[in-house]
């Protein structure tokens, strides 16, 4: 990889992202709707109040379902912070397709830039902004608690190390999904096909994760699937740091290791596909 080529291409991607605020707004739309509507309407913590229990017993009972979070909304909001990494990276693949249609990719591929330069620039540019968006969603979730709605209550003591772990989890999840969407972008030719495939991936990946469901209420087979889901791995790092790790079987770093594994695997596949797509057509 050539640093100058890579940084020029990264700057180009960042300029394009900055000049397209509509794409950023679109990637925030789904997580924000979930927080403002789904999270508010589905905050079923109230239903779990059992008559006769002391507040302490009540909290303990609840904690077995939502793993130490103070209420369902807080538990779920951490899940949405993970989900925004998916919605904020999916347009990096779409950009590849549009660059193919507009000829821009052809121009870059005809230059001495290698597939690694081209892929690396898009990967980094596409994974930087989800960090900002994830913290925006996190901030919004906290803020909702101050305007009379259900909000995110942070009950754990998040130190600098915890904050670092959260940033790392968000970054790894974004890098992994950006790799996936870039791989799709380099192999798919038509925007319609791309969005159809992305839609077919997004919902199943969200619904097989622990982003939405109270862990204790999930059937064991779904727990089994969810514990390998990369969204789950990232979200657990957030929850451990935001609400405490008492109810988790592993420390945060174990989940981070899992995320690194996902990223390395996806990155390897994606670079291979990109190299193949950019090689002279034989």
């Amino acid at each position, binding site marked *: 990889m*050539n640093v*100058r*080529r890579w*940084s*020029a*291409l990264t*700057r*180009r991607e960042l*300029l*394009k992202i900055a*000049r*397209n605020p509509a794409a950023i707004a679109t990637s925030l739309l789904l997580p924000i709707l979930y927080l403002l509507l789904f999270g508010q309407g589905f905050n079923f913590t109230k239903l779990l109040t059992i008559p006769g229990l002391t507040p302490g017993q009540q909290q303990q009972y609840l904690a077995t379902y939502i793993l130490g979070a103070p209420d369902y909304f807080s538990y779920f909001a951490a899940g949405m912070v993970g989900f925004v990494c998916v919605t904020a990276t999916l347009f990096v693949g779409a950009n590849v397709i549009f660059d*193919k249609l*507009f*000829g*821009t990719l*052809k*121009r*870059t*591929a*005809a*230059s*001495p*830039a*290698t597939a690694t330069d081209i892929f690396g620039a898009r990967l980094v540019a596409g994974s930087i902004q989800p960090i900002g968006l994830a913290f925006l969603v996190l901030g919004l979730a906290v803020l909702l608690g101050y305007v009379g709605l259900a909000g995110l209550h942070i009950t754990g003591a998040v130190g600098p190390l915890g904050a670092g772990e959260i940033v790392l989890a968000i970054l790894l999840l974004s890098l992994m999904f950006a790799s996936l969407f870039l791989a799709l972008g380099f*192999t*798919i*030719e*038509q925007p319609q096909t791309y969005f159809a495939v992305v839609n077919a991936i997004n919902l199943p990946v969200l619904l097989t994760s622990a982003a939405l469901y109270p862990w204790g209420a999930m059937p064991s087979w779904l727990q089994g699937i969810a514990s390998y889901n990369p969204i789950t791995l990232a979200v657990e790092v957030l929850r451990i740091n935001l609400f405490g790790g008492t109810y988790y079987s592993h420390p945060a770093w174990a989940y981070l290791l899992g995320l690194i594994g996902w990223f390395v695997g996806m990155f390897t596949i994606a670079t291979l596909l990109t190299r193949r*797509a950019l090689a*002279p*057509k*034989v």
Partner: protein
Amino acid sequence: MTDAIVAEGLTRVFNGSVRAVDGVSFSVTEGEIYGFLGPNGAGKTTTLSMLTAVLGLTSGHATVDGLDVTKHPHDLKQRIGLVFQESTADQDLTGRENLEVAAALFGVPLREAPKRIDYLLERLALADSADRLVKTYSGGMRRRLELAVGIIHSPRVLFLDEPTLGLDPQGRAGFWKIIGDLRKESGMTVFLTTHYLDEADGMCDRIAIIDHGKIAASGTPSELKDRVGGDVVTVRPLGTTGTLEAALRALPGVTSVAVQDGSFRVKCPSGETLIPKVVAAATGLGVSLAGVSLRRPSLDEVFLEFTGREFREDEGPTATDRAVFLTRFQDARRGRR
């Protein structure tokens, strides 16, 4: 003089059977402007794509600036400039930003890059709009920016694929003036494809006429025209002509004389040198002349002569076009490019 481009038996087969380029061989001397002329689907862009390492070769061999196109595609891309048919500039970036990215990609030294960018913007009349987004550019401005991107690194060989497609005559003339000037200044070799006969005639030192994937004829524009039968000198006498017809036939170099509406159409390889002899012969015989005109054969006639069909610039897609499109479409469906 060494050869900047050498192609031997260049062949590209699409879809297992469609020979888009079929055993094409030619060489381009350093500093030359060489044109590939042919209708849509003749194999021009496919040839250019193979020479620029964008497309693989089915068979054959090619070197550009001494580099084998299949063995050293990376070094090759560094040394050549490429201007595509369509606009490939980034619409969401300004003209200057596009050039900055190109300068970095082609490794223009950091210190020189800003100067080179300013020079090209000035030279290609884009200085005033350099900091505007490309999406606000006119067609002519986009073409000029495309050229600036293609020559940002002062390439030794410049490839132009139908570079003036869609430009108005004024835009085309302006574009070619710049290419001519740049060639004079830098001595770079230019390989271009076009289906505009007048462009090939006016710009190229040598031309290859390509049709159905094969070179039908090649040479300098005037050589090609000579091979069609040379110039036509039309002699319009006043009053009686006496033995003028016989005298014209006897002039050296004359290949045929035809009488048409009282005028003599004299065919010869070189009209300019014949005219004084015609005038002298008529004066010697005491025949007064109303006028003598010279017409050089156009490339239209050359094309007709070598391909057996009329050249039409607005031809629809050919069988090759359709096959190439089909291959790309199927590749796309299979998820390949």
